[in-house]
């Protein structure tokens, strides 16, 4: 009888393990690349994450027999411990994956806004011609959350004054960076409150 019970328990445990694995993999695919991340409904994903890790959520998957021998209990406990430990690892994986998605989304926003800023500056910067000279100058930018340009400073000028002047002239044409308005405030503070523009005379710097 005991043997039969043990076999049954083992069967249930295996079933339980398989159902756990299945439930984990039925979450929208988390290990995604940049393009997939665009398609994921981020809000739903977070909700699912909450359900998964909510302690009040009934853990129906693990059922205990009330009457067992101590040896069987130990075996069950060991098996449970193994499953729980496995489950914990999976939870970590999932959280990591979600963090990755968040990061990927943030990265996308940063790249998108950076690209718009890059295009706007390029459209107003009248670059002096310097075929043979490779020059670099760095400007630090200080923005208000409204996108208003509060301050800029040529922190690392090049050795060529006309190159520097052309940059200052371009920067003086800028008053607002409206594109940052589309950003989450935290992301703005982390990345666009203060950032640098690096002007290069050519793509090939010696």
């Amino acid at each position, binding site marked *: 009888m005991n043997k039969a019970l043990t076999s049954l328990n083992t069967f249930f445990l295996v079933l339980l393990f398989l159902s756990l694995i299945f439930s984990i993999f039925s979450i929208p695919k988390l290990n995604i690349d940049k393009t997939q991340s665009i398609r994921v409904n981020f809000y739903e994903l977070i909700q699912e994450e909450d359900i998964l890790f909510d302690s009040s959520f009934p853990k129906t998957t693990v059922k205990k027999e009330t009457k067992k021998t101590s040896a069987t209990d130990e075996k069950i406990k060991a098996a449970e411990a193994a499953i729980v430990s496995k489950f914990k690892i999976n939870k*970590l994986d999932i*959280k*990591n994956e979600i*963090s990755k998605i968040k*990061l990927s989304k943030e990265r996308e926003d*940063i790249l998108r806004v*950076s690209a718009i*800023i*890059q295009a706007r*500056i*390029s*459209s*107003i*910067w*009248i*670059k*002096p*011609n310097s*075929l*043979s*000279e490779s020059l670099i100058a*760095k400007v630090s930018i200080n923005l208000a959350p409204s996108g208003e340009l509060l301050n800029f400073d040529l922190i690392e000028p090049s050795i*060529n*004054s*006309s*190159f520097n*002047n*052309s940059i*200052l*002239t*371009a920067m*003086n*044409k800028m008053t607002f960076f409206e594109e940052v308005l589309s950003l989450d405030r935290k992301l703005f503070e*982390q*990345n*666009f409150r*203060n*950032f*640098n*523009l*690096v*002007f*290069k005379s*050519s*793509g*090939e710097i*010696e």
Partner: protein
Amino acid sequence: MIRFLFVALILVSNSIFSILEIEILKGSDNLSKIAFVPFGVDDGIEESYGRQISRNIEKNMLLFGEFENLPKSEMLSYPSSGNDFYYRDWKVLGVDYSVIGKVNSVNSLGNLNISYSLFNINRRIKLLEGEIVGSEDNIEGISKIISNRIYEEITGLKGIFDTKLAYVINSDADTYQMCISDIDGKNEQILFSSKAPIMSPDWSPDRKKMAYVSFENGLAEIFIQDLQSGERNSIQALGMTNSAPVWSPDGKSLALVVSFSGNPDIFLYSINSKRLIRLTNHYGIDTEPSWSPDSKKIIFTSDRSGSPQLYEINTQSKRKKRLTRDGNYNARGRYFPDGKSIFFVHGNNGNFQIATKKLSSRYIETLTSTSLDESPTISPNGNIIIYATKDGSNGYLGGITLDGKSRFSLPVKNGSVREPAWSPLLN
């Protein structure tokens, strides 16, 4: 947990220690817009002086298509001094720079005292303020000096409005004229006329002499002509034919091509000692030499590899280096004034175009889009290339700024124009 902490640490460290950097490589295709405000005049001075000076400055600055001007009809005011200059009047018109000025006085000798200023509207600063005195008979010259200063202030490059151009006009089948003119085509002078071809003019560094090749005696001979006196002398007793003379940067010698027995090689010729030093000795054709700005190297064309390619030779060690490998025709190489790049004629599928190459790079860049370009010459500030090209059978001079934003052709002459040579700057 450890992995979580690691990710968090990266995020925190990212946000604390690094700052977003956005690279700007490409500039705008737009040109800087300049308002050339008619110069004012003080009481009792002819208004035409002021208008003439500002008009000349405007013409000079627009000559190579590097800037855009604001039409006078759109100007809200005509300030002539800083006191009546308001940035907002120009900002609203999308102007980048404003040039204002005034003729303050004319003395009994006819000398004008002129003051001028250049403003950067976006930065709201006065970039330049100057005063100049010059004869009323030389308003063009005064305007060129002011234009040079403005150009230099805006671009950081030397102004070239008082430079000159030498070229050969072939007005009919039997007439060749060696000419020089101002860079805008004005004040043309004929240095020498011949029934036989003239070619390869080259300015001495002091702008006082011209070296060129003439076939007037049946063979290619090199002549040096004094531009003031008009006196011309041939370089005596070289080989069977002598061609392609180029002055060294110090003006003490010429690099040239001498053919003793039908095989052209590159030589150095000392003007004072009249000594000839051989640089190359190859059964292939070596021709079209040109000096590097530091005088240490000479670029030349050679077909020693089977097709015309550019080579460089160290004038001391005589060590040679091949510079071009793209395509089967690269010739007439010249160094940029900074010595870091070269420009030349690049042949590709029957098209001959002007190309540039950084000496540190493997790649060449084609500048022109016409198909029969030859004899490129560069402005002394290294910003503009003028070259000879053809429209049907008629040769004319085309030009291009190195950023490719502006292409232009110089005023048409009476006949085919070839072999342009841009003068050095006046010291």
